[in-house]
């Protein structure tokens, strides 16, 4: 399984830090090119590999860590996303409601990535907390997941666990997934799972 992070802002950087901390190789791409991430790569070590967007999209699991409005541009970079898992780590804070057309934001993301299995996770806490060591206060920080594809949800739950979090799968996007979409009740919570 190969991984990439698209976006090197606060969220992308926090995620890269978790991969580095756990010795899991990940490529990272942004719109400014690999050179722009030289300092980050130097800080985080050999497991975080700056790449072009084209190269980063070769990964089996592509984590979207950019602004919600960028989804169409990145989606168009491949004509067919079959065989890939796309992780929607975005949130829609500040996105006008009319743009969401009453749909779940992850469904809108899925529409831009035809063929991909989409899992929503890594989206629900501020970047600063996301980057902290998830083993804390006698347990592990909770990371909720949601997907319409139970197999993909489970696979990403394993990744999330390998990054040190306590994964909790909420199921389908328009059911449990609503709790981590928009301003759902499980958004922006710092929860530690005991046991």
């Amino acid at each position, binding site marked *: 399984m190969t991984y990439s992070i698209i976006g090197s802002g606060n969220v992308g950087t926090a995620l890269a830090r978790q991969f580095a901390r756990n010795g899991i190789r990940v490529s990272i791409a942004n719109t400014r090119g690999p050179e722009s991430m030289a300092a980050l790569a130097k800080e985080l070590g050999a497991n975080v590999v700056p790449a072009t967007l084209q190269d980063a999209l070769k990964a089996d699991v592509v984590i979207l860590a950019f602004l919600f409005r960028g989804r169409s541009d990145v989606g168009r970079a491949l004509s067919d996303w079959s065989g890939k898992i796309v992780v929607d780590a975005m949130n829609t804070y500040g996105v006008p409601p009319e743009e969401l057309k009453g749909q779940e934001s992850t469904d809108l993301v899925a529409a831009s990535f035809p063929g991909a299995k989409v899992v929503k996770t890594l989206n629900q806490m501020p970047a600063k907390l996301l980057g902290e060591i998830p083993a804390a*206060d006698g347990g592990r920080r909770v990371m909720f997941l949601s997907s319409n594809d139970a197999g993909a949800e489970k696979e990403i739950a394993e990744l999330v666990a390998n990054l040190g979090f306590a994964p*909790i799968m909420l199921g389908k996007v328009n059911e449990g997934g609503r709790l981590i979409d928009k301003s759902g009740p499980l958004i922006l919570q710092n929860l530690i*799972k*005991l046991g």
Partner: protein
Amino acid sequence: MNYAIIGFGNIGKALAKAFARKGIEVSVAARREPESIAAEAAAIGPKVLPKTLADAVKADIIFLAVRFEAHPDVVKALPNWQGKTIIDVTNAYGVPPGQLGEQPSSQFLANAFSGAKLVKGFNHLGAAVLAQDPGARGGRRVVFLASDDDGAAKEVGALAEDLGFAPVNLGGLWGGGSLVQAYGNSWGRLIFKDLVKFD
């Protein structure tokens, strides 16, 4: 506002301990006579008051902490439940969904306790965990709430805070609430997740 816990099994006792910890008075009622639970209640705290079922249901906010199958006996205790808030702490695990009209068990109870406002809550943890001091690990232990009545959910949320828990309101019984329901032989996805919230 006054409170009662119906059911004095492990869950009922765990809830009584939460009240005792904060010095909040609560009535407790069991299937047995009040005298038969007096010693156990007193051992939990001086403000844990054994009552008959008929007396306990005079409270404004009532925890239903009996086995799900035992709820009809409680329903009969009042001709109508107008003005009452019921906190459904039951789990209908193993009850065939067909017997519940394919509804969430909380919806089934909301219909049975006609007139009451029903909040699902305090049900997702085992008794041994629920009985612990919710602030003992730093942060506050999460209790999930769900209701179709926003006002009642807020009211129970305030009580949960007074008891030292961190309430998380999941929304309606059929929506977010479905994650803390048992359906037939499967548990909702948030059941038994022992979470502590840090601010």
